[in-house]
């Protein structure tokens, strides 16, 4: 028994062990490197394949509203406007709801059945595939918008910027709410208690202490939600109407950067056409990246302070 272990040929097994050790370490670092390379390759591929369009149109690509495959002249202004309009409108609609949810779960009902129901449901909401939101939007939301348009006496498209924004707002609520909730939960309790000890009501504490304190974090959360909305493709594609004309009101049909790619990529004949779509993809990538970074940066600063 005593020499059971010492009788084992340790040295022999260790030479194999040393090799395995080195191979293991290599595998780990190569995996980490691979992800870095993957991202770089994604960026470079987009850049290389959009170079024909970059060369042909240069900066006019951003300001021209002509999108004409027949004469091979491409400008993406319509899609920028479409993306910005739908995303901001969606955020505007989403904000009161997401804020309410985050105050509900983060401050009023931190525990209990109500908040856990609300939490579970918002998580479910986040899990539903985007194509199903689009489908539902197409069959339920669009008719409602159409009725509204008939009442208002404008051309009843149904599909359009408004429908897209509405469906988008439903989709980003869970996301925006969960970030705001985390930020609100970070507000130190002593400053809240300071408010209460001065005789402030709960509403006063929320609106005058918690929200200002959590303000930048909530903004960051909203920004991250915006990043989500910008890149959202399917639901928007299905209800926006896919028109390449500059929208003149929120009821007009339009197209976003993502939806134009989804719609036209497979039919894009000709180098310049495809390249222009890829350039839109590249811009989408860069915009999403920038917004994400700003959002994460603010959140990081907020959580360090707390």
């Amino acid at each position, binding site marked *: *028994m*005593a*020499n*059971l*272990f*010492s009788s*084992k040929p340790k*040295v022999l*097994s*260790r030479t194999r062990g040393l090799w395995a050790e080195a191979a293991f370490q290599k595998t780990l670092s190569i995996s980490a490197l691979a992800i870095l390379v993957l991202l770089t390759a994604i960026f470079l591929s987009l850049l290389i394949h959009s170079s024909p369009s970059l060369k042909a149109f240069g900066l006019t690509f951003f300001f021209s509203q002509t999108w004409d495959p027949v004469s091979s002249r491409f400008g993406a202004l319509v899609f920028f406007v479409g993306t910005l309009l739908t995303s901001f409108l969606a955020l505007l609609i989403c904000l009161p709801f997401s804020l309410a949810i985050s105050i509900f779960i983060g401050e009023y009902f931190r525990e209990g059945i109500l908040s856990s129901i609300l939490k579970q449901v918002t998580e479910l909401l986040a899990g539903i595939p985007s194509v199903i939101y689009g489908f539902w939007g197409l069959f339920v939301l669009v008719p409602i918008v159409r009725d509204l348009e008939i009442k208002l006496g404008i051309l009843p498209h149904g599909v359009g910027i408004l429908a897209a924004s509405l469906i988008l707002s439903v989709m980003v609520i869970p996301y925006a709410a969960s970030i705001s909730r985390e930020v609100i939960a970070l507000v130190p309790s002593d400053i809240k208690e300071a408010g209460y000890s001065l005789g402030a009501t709960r509403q006063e504490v929320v609106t005058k202490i918690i929200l200002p304190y959590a303000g930048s974090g909530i903004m960051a959360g909203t920004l991250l939600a915006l990043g989500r909305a910008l890149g959202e493709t399917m639901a928007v594609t299905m209800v926006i109407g896919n028109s390449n004309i500059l929208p003149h009101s929120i009821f007009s049909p339009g197209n976003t950067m993502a939806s134009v790619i989804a719609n036209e990529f497979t039919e894009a004949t000709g180098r310049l056409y495809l390249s222009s779509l890829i350039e839109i993809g590249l811009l989408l990538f860069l915009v999403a990246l920038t917004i994400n970074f700003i959002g994460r940066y603010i959140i990081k600063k907020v959580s360090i302070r707390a």
Partner: protein
Amino acid sequence: MGSKVLRTENLSAYFRDNRVVNRVSLSIPENMVTTIMGPSGCGKTTLIRCFNRIHELIPGARVEGRVFLRDEDVYATDPMIIRRRIGMVFQRPNPFPTMSIYDNVIAGYRLNGIKLGHGERDAMVEESLKKAALWDEVKDHLNRKGTFLSGGQQQRLCIARALAMNPDILLLDEPTSALDPKATARVEQLVEELKKTVTLILVTHNVAQAGRVSDFTAFLYLGELIEYGPTEQLHTAPKDTRTEEFLTGKFG
């Protein structure tokens, strides 16, 4: 003092540029209990972590000087071999949470990929648990997870796990600091019995504990070895005023 099982020469340990153990030279006698005591932060834990080369795993950590296990230069040998010969028990009990009590005891073999026969395994588990005075308490539920045991039992399970490797030396890093007085007494009693078969090095900041269990005591202060000798002598007639101050509770 009998034969020496472990010897250090000018051993220094660093965290980056911060020297926490300063040129310590000492010899540990075989089959005795040697206590390393000192106030918290004096480098005693770091010192014993240099013995089994665990210290160097921390990023930025570094060791200077030499350590000999019998006549072998510890820092010129494969650390895995050294660690199998020098067992360690930590401050907080840390049984492997995914393994049963049984598997925890023979984890050293399992994880090292050393095949044991079925009978061999059973015998080893029983003997190690008996040595660690845990057998009677757990023999009927060896398949339960180790984390279901009480803190004191978990710590004895960790001792059994280390003993199963049949080490030359067992390092105990404040093994009772997370335990209640009753469990502490149990572990101290165990230490007393274990020294028949294994050399024990115990780190503690508790003067009374050092007095109760050890044959030799080293007093470490600010990373330096201040005094080292038979426990009784060091406790009754310390040569250095700092040792005396520590023993009488003036600091730490």
